[in-house]
């Protein structure tokens, strides 16, 4: 069962639906909670899973990807990660919940979640975790798996930016901020390009941003090296 895609408006407003069950209901609507009324905004979804839908090896799969990943199995669900996280309010599944669902084997829900892509990699959770679970690295691992399986949120900004960034480094060896921002805006939200044009222009006048693409000398060698790693 795939969770419905969250529209941008629903998470950007800070009122993300914590249960990840779909679009945010209009404020004050009590009907959303009842399943029986005739005119309802949306049905309450059955969140329970049949065992056949679960993948019990999922937690082990993540653990194998990450150094010290096996500590994932020792999580005590204290919620320190969720409270330490500066952006947990914007996540559809909080880090604690994500770990619980990974261990339960809810593979599809976890891999389709926005959470790994909202993560800012600030490592606040990692250093606070009483069980020393490398949560940030687990987020990175989840990103890798969801990219491989193509289950990442397609129109969300961070995967788009990650791809644009990686393509650029693969090609030129260095990143140029102006090109990445333009690519990001054009692929996700062109209106932002106009909105942020003034600051780009100011930065260009100060010599902090340019349209010339940065590059290293040995571009071919860099590609050879990267191919040698993946082979």
């Amino acid at each position, binding site marked *: 069962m795939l969770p419905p895609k969250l529209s941008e408006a629903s998470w950007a407003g800070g009122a993300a639906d914590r249960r990840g069950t779909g679009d945010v209901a209009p404020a004050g609507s009590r009907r959303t909670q009842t399943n029986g009324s005739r005119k309802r905004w949306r049905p309450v979804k059955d969140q329970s899973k049949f065992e056949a839908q679960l993948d019990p090896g999922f937690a082990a799969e993540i653990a194998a990807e990450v150094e010290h990943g096996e500590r994932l199995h020792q999580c005590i669900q204290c919620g320190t990660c969720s409270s330490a996280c500066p952006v947990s309010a914007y996540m559809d599944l909080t880090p604690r919940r994500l770990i619980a669902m990974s261990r339960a084997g809810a593979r599809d829900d976890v891999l389709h979640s926005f959470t790994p892509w*909202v993560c*800012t990699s600030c490592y606040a959770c990692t250093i606070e975790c009483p069980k020393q679970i490398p949560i940030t690295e687990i987020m990175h691992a989840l990103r*890798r798996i969801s990219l491989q399986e193509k289950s990442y949120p397609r129109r969300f*900004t961070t995967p788009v930016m990650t791809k644009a960034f990686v393509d650029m480094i693969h090609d030129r060896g*260095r990143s140029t901020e102006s090109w990445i921002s333009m690519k990001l805006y054009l692929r996700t939200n062109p209106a932002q390009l106009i909105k942020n044009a003034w600051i780009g222009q100011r930065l260009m006048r100060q010599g902090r941003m340019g349209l010339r693409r940065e590059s290293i000398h040995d571009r071919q060698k860099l590609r050879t090296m990267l191919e040698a*790693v993946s082979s």
Partner: protein
Amino acid sequence: MSTQRYVYYPGCSATGVGRGFTESLDAVFEHLGTGLDELEDWNCCGATAWPSVDEDQAFALSARNLALAEDRAPDDGPVDVLASCTGCYRALLKAEHVLNEAGPKAEKIGGALEAIGLDYEGRTRVRHPIDILLNEIGLDRIREAVVRPLTGLKVACYYGCLLVRPFATFDDQHNPTSMDRLVAAVGAEPIDWPLKTRCCGGSCYCGGPVIGAMPEATMQLSYALLREATKRGADMIATICPLCQFNLEGFQGRMSKRFGRPLDVPSVFVSQILGIAMGIDEKRLGIQRLLRWQLPDREPVPAEGGVHARA
């Protein structure tokens, strides 16, 4: 007393949006009698975006930089590699850890380096310029170099996330104080505030566009920092990461409108504050590249020296 020159890895952001950081560090190090040599033909460290696609390739990217830096090492000893951007700092440190552990990953990356005619023996030490300023050059030499003490200037030192996390190499993870000590050494007053290491939302991706990635979250996070700093009377925010600096500086107008609290706090690099106190020319420190910059009109000081001496 160290007079050696250091190998410097600037990274993409500290040569782009955060150009002032590289310029001011260069000037300050030169002024203190050492110097920075930019690593030749360095490549991107992979930031946090590349580990999200392929972790081994991300290590290989950093390993290439480390191998290039190692060529500059003296025959007998290790070489210090200075990474100014904290995103690069983390990436290089992490790669160094993996390579020094000599596991299967290190072998794989070593093989890839061999394919392009490089090798890495583990003779680099990745360090942050703040670490060098504090622990190699020392506060005494910095105090001696001050010609214009910034008395009365209240500075909120903002360390950002990746300097002390996940690796705490030279400072406390929860309450770092290295920058406070540097700022105090040039006469300014570091304010006590609790958000020193809270994420600014810069996300350590690739600078400028981050506000485009998650505008609402970024605004909330940066606003929390700016509000706390101004509430505690900071005249300035000192940063050590190009992304934090730009993130805190660039969108204050938008934040003022959004949250209804006027904001106008210069967000600068700590090296620029040190440089001003040492009397280095503002052009060399990249002050003209800041969007906001003013020293406060507090505590009038006699004509020579002091915070008013700025032309």
